[in-house]
């Protein structure tokens, strides 16, 4: 009987524990909802007066920018190529720098001090926005696409290095152990076991970063880093909204093309 009573107590205890967890879960949900509401209020998002003229203004702007004006299309080829070049070179440089940094930063890479140092470098690189990197490099190497690609490379190294490190941490260690049992070096384990396993995910995040960098390269044009962004901001400054709309459509076309190419490359590597 004592045994049965003990089991009954144990069941009651398990159920009480479940109820306690449920209460904690609801309390957490309510706290998160409150924090989000405060954030919206702090950003003045609940001030409905601010929205009064929003829609008519947007419609007027849209009306002013239609139909799109493609009359200066011949002068867009070079800036467009600059933007594309910035995004490609920035991504390639970032991937090349992020690969060793990510490998060193991954937990379990074998050297905790080096791992922490690599993480610190990656955190620093990505905590500085690419616009700030851009301003620094415009001052350092002058105007044009070069400061743009250097800025993209720095910020993207921080992002890609973090992603690469996380991908490496989730790798199946069993094939690497098989290699180690054959006496191969740490570098060879990285090359023959880790690399083949991480390649699809690495290609995936790198392509995503390239797509992101095309858009980021456009924004960098605003601070003098060349490319189609400079054309866009100039059109806005001159109130040439129809030309600005045409440039936005061209950019949309470019990003869509890159997305299609990225999807094709992903399908090849992820198959």
């Amino acid at each position, binding site marked *: 009987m004592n045994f049965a009573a003990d089991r009954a107590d144990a069941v009651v205890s398990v159920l009480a524990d479940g109820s306690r967890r449920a209460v904690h879960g609801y309390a957490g949900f309510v706290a998160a909802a409150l924090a989000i509401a405060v954030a919206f209020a702090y950003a003045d998002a609940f001030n409905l007066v601010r929205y009064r003229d929003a829609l008519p203004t947007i419609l007027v702007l849209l009306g002013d920018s239609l139909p799109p004006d493609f009359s200066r299309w011949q002068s867009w080829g070079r800036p467009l190529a600059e933007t594309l070049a910035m995004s490609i070179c920035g991504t390639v440089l970032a991937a090349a720098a992020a690969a060793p940094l990510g490998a060193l930063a991954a937990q379990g890479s074998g050297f905790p001090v080096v791992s922490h140092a690599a993480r610190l470098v990656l955190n620093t690189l990505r905590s500085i926005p690419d616009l700030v990197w851009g301003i620094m490099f415009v001052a350092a190497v002058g105007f044009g696409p070069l400061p743009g690609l250097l800025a993209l490379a720095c910020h993207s190294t921080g992002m890609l290095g973090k992603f690469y490190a996380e991908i490496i941490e989730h790798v199946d260690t*069993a*094939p690497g*152990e098989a290699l180690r*049992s*054959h006496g191969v070096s740490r570098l060879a384990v*990285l090359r*023959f076991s880790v690399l*083949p396993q991480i390649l699809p995910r690495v290609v995936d995040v790198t392509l995503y970063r390239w797509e992101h960098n095309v858009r980021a390269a456009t924004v960098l044009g605003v601070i003098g880093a060349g490319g189609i962004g400079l054309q866009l901001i100039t059109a806005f400054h001159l109130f040439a909204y129809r030309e600005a709309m045409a440039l936005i459509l061209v950019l949309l076309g470019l990003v869509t093309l890159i997305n299609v190419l990225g999807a094709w490359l992903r399908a090849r590597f992820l198959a």
Partner: protein
Amino acid sequence: MPTAPCGRAGRSGGDDLPGNAPPAVVLDQITVCLGGQMVLRDVSLVITAGAITAVVGRSGVGKTTLIRTLNGLVRPCSGTAQVAGIGTLDGAEAWRAHRRRTATVFQDHALIGRLSAIDNVLLGLADQRHPLSLLPWPRALRQRAAMALDSVGLLARANAPVGKLSGGERQRVGLARALVRDPDLLLADEPFASVDPALVGQLSHDFRAAVRQCGLTVVIVLHQLDTALAIADRIVGLVDGRVAFNGTPCAFDSAARGRVFHNLRALSPLLKDMP
């Protein structure tokens, strides 16, 4: 098994247990501690050259750790290991030489699913390439890998991704990756664990034939006792990290089994039917 998986002649006498065969590995009072726990305690063992030694015992008694000690993935905290032709494994050079002559078949095979069968087998030869080389695998190594796959009857699936192979086929790829090294000592950790039970009999028969053909020294961890009795020349039973039995399959009588599998005996109807 159409061809000899290794590049040398098999041992004469085919299936016979070597009578006075020399020891391939001698473990002397090996103790291994992992995470503050003693997993192997004073294990002294002679692994006979050319014989198949099956290590059996309950889960968690240190069978896998014994394999990992033999291939150097785990270093003992005390005791010595001696290997024929190398001597005591006490330095980097001795370990390098030992590992060059050793290959391991892992539980769950430890293969890379997205690589083809032949690319996985080539990983067994990774110590023969510079890790930073961008060149494709040399033709001679690719040929060896293809022959190893042929020896386990999988040449037709050489270019199929391992992720699309069945459990039995993956087990064969794991075996081919070990055999392609042309090892003297083959270690296997539950190689049939994730294989359909109906296939274990055939696979274990193939395994025995392949290693016999090459005259390899084999240490194999098995949880299927009937498989161990069918393929092994010697049985080593572990209990709580110690050697509780070390003898021929014939000597592994019910009393010995009782010592090795003490608590499980009442639970396992399979064990009750055994002599």
